[in-house]
């Protein structure tokens, strides 16, 4: 994302962060079209939708950088511990999930492309 963030302008006091404006350039036409479609589907303007995406992305990134996997996965770890499930069973679950993922990929790759 950094490569498309060209400039940051602040309105009002230099200390104020509530009214910052970010100008983003270089978004591919297809991506911009997708953004507008998604915004429309969500019932908001493209600007509001982009703001939501940025805020969500920043929040997820903050979590990813500040919380350990043990903190993030504590509830799942507790469930695993209490379940008595063996690591072999986990392997079986993952193997089946991988197989489904690979089938989907193959299906997607072999699907005939639509003519323009």
């Amino acid at each position, binding site marked *: 994302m950094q490569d498309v963030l060209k400039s940051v302008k602040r309105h009002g006091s230099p200390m104020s962060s509530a009214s910052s404006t970010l100008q983003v350039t270089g978004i591919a036409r297809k991506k911009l079209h997708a953004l507008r479609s998604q915004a429309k589907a969500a019932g908001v303007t493209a600007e509001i939708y982009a703001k939501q995406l940025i805020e969500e992305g920043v929040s997820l990134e903050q979590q*990813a950088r500040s919380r350990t996997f043990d903190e993030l996965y504590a509830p799942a770890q507790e469930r695993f511990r209490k379940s008595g499930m063996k690591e072999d069973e986990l392997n079986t679950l993952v193997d089946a999930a991988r197989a489904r993922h690979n089938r989907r990929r193959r299906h997607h790759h072999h699907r005939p492309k639509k003519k323009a």
Partner: protein
Amino acid sequence: MLQPSLRIVIDTNTLLRGLVSASSAAARIRRAAEQRVFIPLLSKPVLDEYRAVLLDEAIAKRFPEITPELVEVTIRRLRFIGDYSRQPNTRFRYERDESDQRFLELAIGLKATHILSSDKDLLSLPQSQTDAGRRFRQRLPDVEVMEAGDFLRKYGNALAIQ
């Protein structure tokens, strides 16, 4: 003392064990990665597989705590602690299990020192007398493929992995 320059590819089974089984060898290794003891290697195909497996319906049924938001944070955290190449610029044909190709290509492309896996085919590949085994030794002559527990037994003390 080993330098913190080990570059490790982690397969999806080892990743999930490391996340949900807190007392497993895989979890100890995952914590070491978070403490920057070694560098986990990542590519888009591998992250796509991690994401698909973590979001898989059967996994979600067993672990409802693994929400789409948690999966997104997981992928971002892996990228935060790892080295990422969108698409390693290499091809390694592995017909026995084509889905393992993405891990082998990542290992070649980002110069791995180790591949951690519990997959029997992958584990036996370095010694295999098949064409794939010979190509593996040619392309990855110094790479060890091992299970998480074996990695800890061999390197745990030297790397001070708790």
